């Protein structure tokens, strides 16, 4: 697909959407967006009621906060961190210790425990950030890697604090119970998380509209020049780092409440890596990108791995293709289409999208069928060659199944290529139109 780089996307994270002489309709748009967000948060658990989906929704909220906070570093500050889990994780640990103390009579309401986590994350950021933010770019990335590895290694060495292998567990049903809210049932906790998610998202969005938030963008783009307009880049990075860690810590605190157990995996390198991968997948160049990324992260880890043993393979492939064809993440795809919509041309694309989607699905079906057969042969040899794939019986030893899958896939590829060509043409034509239109409007202005 001819998806242009993120740079050509119309409204970058930093665009002055909340600019100065803002015209009214846009603000209405903003109201609508935020209200929608609130409604989605509110309604989601009413639609998905199983206990798994409720815990997944809770985890999505938690992931949203932490991915957004990660993006304060990556997307807004250009700081590639390999150790963000340190801050969310330390938030978790201190939160759970606090929760245990609440159990022993410390008078803090359970609903404020995440704040404790946030403060803890912040504290560690004040300490570690002092060294990590001394540098930018690759040295920064590498220091965070080193600090992350050190903390992770320590987490196993100090069972007194980290609880050893079993971690620290606790019980969130403790302390006073205002209005009978115990946070015992998942749904009550979900709404606590939802409130935090909404507030933190709003706060982090607000942050992007503040002088520091803007200077952070400037530091990302051109640190040298920032020094010549009066700012100490190191300090900008440091403060932003601390703020990001605060939100990460909040998410860690919520996670502690949600799981009621914290083990050393929460500060691990793979965890930090997951934040990076999914923030990027969602789209680091747009504020809302990490939200998409966070939702996908939970889906991938919880659902995808339930559905198929080949989930890591699929994940790897998704990354490969996303990075190659949509380096701005999913958010950039969304924004590009919004731009087309803004010029009133999205309608024409529906058919193409449907066709693209359908043909891509065919390719996927064929390919996935074969992948699943291979995995089945490899992993479940004892269960015989038969397997069910999306309800269809396949025989991993049968020529028919293989031939069928290959046929489906090849047909899919052929059809996809045809529709893709058509789409590319159409897309190019629309972009041309938009460019002209922009020029024309500029000329009028």
């Amino acid at each position, binding site marked *: 697909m001819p998806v242009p780089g993120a*740079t050509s996307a119309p409204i*970058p994270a*930093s*665009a*002055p959407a*909340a*600019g*100065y002489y*803002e015209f009214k309709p846009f603000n209405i748009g903003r109201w609508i967006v935020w209200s929608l967000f609130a409604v989605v948060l509110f309604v989601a658990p009413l639609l998905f009621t199983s206990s798994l989906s409720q815990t997944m929704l809770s985890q999505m909220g938690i992931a949203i906060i932490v991915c957004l906070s990660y993006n304060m570093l990556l997307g807004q500050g250009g700081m590639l961190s390999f150790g963000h889990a340190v801050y969310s994780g330390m938030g978790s640990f201190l939160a759970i210790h606090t929760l245990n103390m609440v159990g022993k009579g410390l008078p803090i309401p359970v609903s404020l425990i995440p704040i404790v986590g946030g403060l803890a994350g912040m504290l560690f950021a004040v300490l570690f950030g002092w060294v990590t933010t001394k540098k930018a770019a690759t040295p920064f990335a590498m220091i965070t890697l080193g600090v992350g590895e050190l903390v992770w290694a320590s987490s196993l060495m100090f069972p007194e604090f980290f609880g050893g292998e079993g971690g620290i567990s606790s019980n969130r049903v403790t302390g006073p119970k205002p209005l009978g809210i115990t946070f015992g049932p998942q749904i009550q906790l979900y709404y606590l998380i939802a409130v935090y998610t909404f507030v933190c998202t709003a706060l982090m969005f*607000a*942050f992007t*509209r*503040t*002088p*520091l*938030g*803007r*200077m952070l*963008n*400037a530091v*990302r*783009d*051109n640190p*040298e*020049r*920032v*020094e*010549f*307009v*009066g*700012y*100490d880049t190191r*300090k*900008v990075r440091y*403060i932003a780092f601390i*703020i990001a860690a605060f939100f990460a810590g909040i998410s860690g605190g919520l996670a502690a409440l949600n799981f009621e157990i914290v083990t050393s995996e929460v500060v691990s390198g793979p965890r930090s890596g997951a934040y990076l991968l999914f923030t990027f997948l969602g789209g680091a160049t747009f504020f809302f990108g990490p939200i998409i990324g966070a939702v996908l992260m939970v889906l991938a880890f919880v659902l995808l791995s339930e559905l198929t043993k080949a989930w890591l393979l699929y994940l790897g492939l998704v990354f490969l293709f996303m990075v190659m064809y949509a380096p701005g993440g999913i958010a950039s795809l969304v924004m590009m289409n919004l731009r087309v919509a803004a010029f009133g041309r999205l309608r024409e694309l529906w058919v193409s999208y449907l066709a693209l989607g359908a043909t891509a699905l065919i390719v996927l079906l064929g390919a996935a069928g074969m992948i699943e057969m291979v995995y089945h042969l490899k992993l479940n040899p004892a269960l015989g060659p038969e397997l069910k794939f999306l309800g269809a019986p396949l025989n991993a030893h049968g020529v028919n199944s293989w031939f069928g899958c290959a046929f489906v896939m090849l047909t899919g590829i052929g059809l996809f290529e045809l529709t893709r060509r058509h789409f590319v043409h159409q897309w190019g034509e629309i972009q041309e139109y938009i460019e002209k239109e922009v020029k024309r409007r*500029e000329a009028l*202005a």
Partner: protein
Amino acid sequence: MSDSSSFALELRDLRKSFGKTEIIRGANLAVRPGERVAVIGPNGAGKSTLFNLISGRFEPTSGEVLLNGKRIDGKKPFEINRLGLSRSFQITNIFPKLSVFENLRCGVLWSLGYRYTFLKFLADLDDANDRAEELMKMIRLERKRDVLAVNLTYAEQRALEIGVTIGGGAGVILLDEPTAGMSKSETRRFIELIKEVTVGKTLLTVEHDMGVVFGLADKIAVVVYGEVIAFDSPEKVRANQRVQEAYLGSHVADAQVGAH
């Protein structure tokens, strides 16, 4: 030397070596407030290096730099900027992924006292926004308000570079080849613009284009081989034999007129 506080900018026996090579070899210069100084000299003479030393990008090996009578050598760029000195770059150096308006606003925030705050909305900072709008008008980029800096044309980027430089309201402005890469007509317009936006300020600018130099400057400083060999009015500098030899060559007159 006269009372140093009467100078906006003063260099005293400034030296800078990179490794074993000494690039700036004892430069002295004293610029009075409100003067427009053109810094000229052969390629590699050390003009940009001089600017880098003054603005804190490099630390001098020895010598002093005084801004309004206060020592600034060895300070960090942002400290110097806060003391009222601002510079532009020979190679365009702006915030590519921010819009024109945002670029300018970044340039004014510190001087208006907003510092590292994250408790106020940018949209509510009326003074900063007004100032940025004003700057945008000055550099004639109103129509490109929301365009990302990368997507500007070269000349527009150069204009933005100047806008960001003067935004902070510094009293001493250093411009390094502001018109490099522009056509004659653009250059001419641009010089007007520079004149306009630096009214009442002390200006140092590096230029190779003699037309510009003579059009813009009250005084000319000639840098050769890391030293300021002459600092005088344009006429006198032009007449100076050493300058002739070292820099201008025989076609000065041509260079000025012929290019049109």
